[in-house]
Each structure stands twice: as C-alpha cells, then as structure tokens.
C-alpha cells in the first residue's frame, strides 16, 4: 500500500510572479498630483537647490576652467569650453534631479512616511504608485532643466532654436534615470544605501560620459564601454542641439536610452512588488 500524505490545504499559491507585466491605469494621476501639491508648498527653496548648484558648476568650471582651456575641438569644429560644458552638464542636472527625487524623496514616502501603504488601502495599485513616482521624478528633472536652460539662454551660451528639441530629450533622460533610481529605492534599507548608487554608478558615469572632457580622451577600451552609458547617450543627443546641429545617431541612441528606461522600470517594479508582498 502506498503511504502518501495528502496536503492539508488543497490550493497552494504563492501569489502571481513579481515579474508579471506592469498593470497600469490612469490611477497614477492622483498620486502624481499629491506630490505636486506637496512640492508647490516647497517650490521656491527646492528650485534654488535644484538650479543653484548646477549653475555654480557651470560658472566655476565653464568660465574658470574655460578661460584656461579656451576652445575644445569637437568633430573637427572648435567650440568654446563653456558651451561644451553647458551642453553636457544639463544632462547631468536632469540625471541628478530625477535620481534625488526617485531615491531620497520616494524612499521617504514609501518607507518613512508610509504614504504608499496609505494609498494602497485606496483603489490604487502598487504599479500605478511606482509609475506616478517615476513620472514625478522625471517631471522634477524637466522642471529643473527648464530653469537651467532659461539661465543658459540668458547668459547667451547658445541660441539655437534646436534647443526646443533638447527639452523632450531631457524629459526622456529624466525618465530613464528615475527608472534606474527606483531599482535602488526598492532595494534600500535606509538612506545610507543610496551612497553606493552615487559612489559606484553616478559619479564614475559623470566623469566617463563626456561632460567635462570629450570621451576620445579616454583609453579605447574604457571608451567603448563609456559610449553605451545612459548619460553618454543623453550627452550625445543633447550636445549637438546646443551647437545648432542634429545628432547623428539620434534614433539609435534614443532607442537604447528608451531600452534602459523600459528594462529599469520593469526591474524596479518587480523588486518593489517583492518588497511589498512580504
């Protein structure tokens, strides 16, 4: 006779996979509005913080270093250093604004204030909350770069009408970096964890992406990797617009950047679902 035990519970189900497709709806909108309403109360100090620092970099490096360096050769054309730096650092500003919001601020709402838990007791899915946070961080990046672009125009750094095209590109850069940051938000146990992300990813990327010096100064092997960094792609898309040119491989670079964003969002969502399912 067989002696198999039958399980006590007929159905055994650990829930759907965290890697299932995102379930998105327009319910992200009230969550986005919530963040907007908080930010409206703090907009002035936040604006100062968001644009003052990048402008200090620009002035100190652009005019300071710029007077030492003079012009820089870019694809056979001589370009003032300040223009070279401005067109790169605007991408860095988009990256930083999106990253800070999707790390520190999102983590405060998710973990410290438990705002997300409160929202999930209403008919809003976690997927929509992650979507709202992602778009919110991208919006903040867009807001920051708009203010900086305004100052750059006022300083007369570039007057190309092609800068209008830089605007949606920088929104895309904000989206890509907020998606990436949300992965680390999902994994974080505290604010200190974010130091890893900044020290190991963002800071090296900042120096390898051709913001402060052209990437052809890098050793060939490093350069072949650096060319595919998301910040390099952003710089390659935005810099020509400052120089009144169209980027050469725009479609390819935009697609790779979009792939970074899409894959990162999916991973971030899966890890966030995992964090909340236990």
């Amino acid at each position, binding site marked *: 006779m067989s002696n198999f035990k039958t399980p006590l519970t007929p159905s055994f189900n650990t829930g759907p996979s965290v890697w299932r497709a995102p379930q998105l709806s327009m319910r992200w909108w*009230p969550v986005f509005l919530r963040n907007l*309403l908080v930010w409206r109360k703090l907009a002035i100090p936040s604006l100062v913080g968001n644009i003052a620092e990048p402008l200090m970099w620009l002035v100190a490096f652009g005019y300071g270093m710029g007077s030492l360096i003079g012009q820089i050769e870019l694809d056979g054309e001589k370009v003032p250093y300040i223009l070279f730096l401005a067109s790169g650092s605007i991408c860095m500003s988009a990256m930083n604004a999106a990253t800070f919001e999707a790390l520190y601020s999102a983590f405060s709402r998710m973990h410290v204030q438990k705002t997300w838990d409160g929202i999930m007791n*209403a008919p809003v899915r976690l997927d929509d909350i992650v979507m709202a946070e992602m778009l919110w961080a991208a919006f903040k990046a867009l807001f920051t770069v708009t203010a900086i672009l305004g100052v750059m125009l006022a300083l007369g750094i570039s007057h190309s009408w092609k800068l209008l095209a830089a605007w949606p590109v920088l929104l895309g850069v904000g989206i890509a970096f907020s998606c990436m940051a949300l992965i680390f938000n999902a994994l974080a146990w505290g604010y200190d964890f974010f130091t890893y992300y900044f020290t190991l990813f963002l800071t090296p990327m900042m120096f390898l992406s051709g913001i402060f010096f052209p990437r052809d100064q890098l050793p060939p092997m490093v350069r072949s990797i650096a060319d595919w960094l998301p910040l390099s792609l952003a710089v390659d898309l935005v810099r020509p617009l400052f120089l009144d040119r169209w980027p050469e491989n725009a479609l390819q670079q935009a697609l790779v950047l979009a792939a970074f964003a899409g894959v990162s969002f999916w991973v971030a969502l899966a890890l966030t679902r995992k964090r909340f399912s236990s």
Partner: protein
Amino acid sequence: MVKRYGDATVVNDLSFHIDPGECLGVIGPNGAGKTTTLRICLGLTSPDGGQIDYFDGLHMPQDALAIKSRLGVVSQMDTLDPDFSCAENLLVYGRYFGLKDTQIRERIAPLLEFGALTSKANAKPGELSGGMKRRLSLSRALINHPSMLMLDEPTTGLDPQARHLMWERLQNLLQQGKSILLTTHFMDEAERLCDRLLVLDHGRKIAEGKPRDLIAEHLEPDVVEVYGEGALALAQDAALRPLAARVEVSGETVFFYTAQAQPLLLALQPWPQLRTLHRPANLEDLFLKLTGRQIREDA
C-alpha cells in the same frame, strides 16, 4: 485561509465571515496573525491557500480595486501626509478613489466634524495629538462612504478620553449600518463594540462567538482575586480549593474562579491582611485562559 512565511504558519486554516452591519473583533496576543489576516483580506499579502469573498460576489485579489473602492481602512500606523493640513489630507485621499474635487470638498466639513477636528482643519498632523491623528485617519477612511471598515488596533496608544471618543464614533458608524472588522488588544473595547469575537492564537482560531456567550461558555461567572503577603500559599489551601472551580496564580495574585463567591469570601475572612477583589468574570479572564498568562518571547 493559510499564510506561511518559510516554516512558520502565521495564519493557519482560518475561516470567518462578517454580516452586514456587524462588528467583528479579532483578538489575540502579539504575533497571533491579526494584522496578517487583515493584510490578506486587503489583498496586500497573497495567502498560500484559501479564498476571500466580498459583497456582491467580488473576490480578493481579482476584484481588489472594486472592493477597495467600498472599503475604509485604518492601519495600525498612521499613514497621514505630514505636509498636508487635515482638510488637504482628506482631499488628496479622496482623489485616490477617483472622486471629483467638488464632491470631496462637500464631504470634508462633515468628516472633520465627525472626527471632532473642525477647529484643526488647517493644522498639519504634526500639530495633532495621538487621538486626533487616529480620528483623522478614521475620517479619511470614510471619504469614500465605505460600506465596510477595517480597523487595525484603532485605539492603541490613546488616553481614556480619546479612546471613549473613538468608541462613540465607531458605535455611531455601526448604527449607520456599516460593518466593522476590528483588531484590538483591549478587552473592554472588544466587549463594548463587537457583536462577535474571533480569538486567534498562533494563527489559529481558538474561539468564536458573542462576548457574553464566550465568557459564559468558558468561565465561571465570578472571580475572587487575592493578593498580599501569604496569598500564594492559599492556592494550595485545602479548605479553600473545594470552594473554587478553578484556581490560577499569576505573579503575586491568586485568582479563584467560582460560581458561588460568598462561601469563598467567608472562608477568606481569617486572612484580613490579604486584599481581595470580587468581580464578575470578564473577557480579559477569557483571553488569558485561552492564550495563557505568560509573556510571549517574541512579543
């Protein structure tokens, strides 16, 4: 339903139902599975087995959004927005339910009044007392006019005045016909508010019924507590033992459970230095009988 975390089964073959307009209380020691049970009911945690059916043939988790649009939830920890005033907290929360701003604004004043928070409409949660915060959480949970409320320890940490006000509000909601599922550590709260109780321990249902029925079923009607020097020896006293149906010792106090207290009280007169307290058996006695008097290691 069943829920396991690794080898630990935190909700073990638990089933229950709640009638419309009823208040069902879930009581149990820390770690008994109360909050996990609530989280499963809210679709926030997937059970390892079982099924959760709601009103109108809706099922969790498939119909989570439809169900939640008709639920009001107050979690154990306040999740109020610290940057918003009380009124803004209600406005922003109402939007999550897809309500229009005009519709929400009409509801804000009555809900603040319900929470006794009218004068605090423009105050932020950081400026509120613990009781006010809990009432704001309750008011916020009512923004969608829910038919059922889920409250996880709604009065933990409140002073007696704040608790009584909270109870009064909850009784008011029950009179309006709303159902309430409530977890609590307070037996007076459970006895006062709940039509029916579910006693959980180690994720299992160990008793279920109306508070008075449970007491009558499991306990003798009277309790005589004796404490003071030499009280512990009485637990073994040959003259006293037969007068009590059950004797329990906890710390320095001896509890005599009996159907007839008078003979016992008379027999205790030779020990005038001892302090005695004669009272009817209550839910706390039941709770301690069912779940034990010792402090849990993990509590």
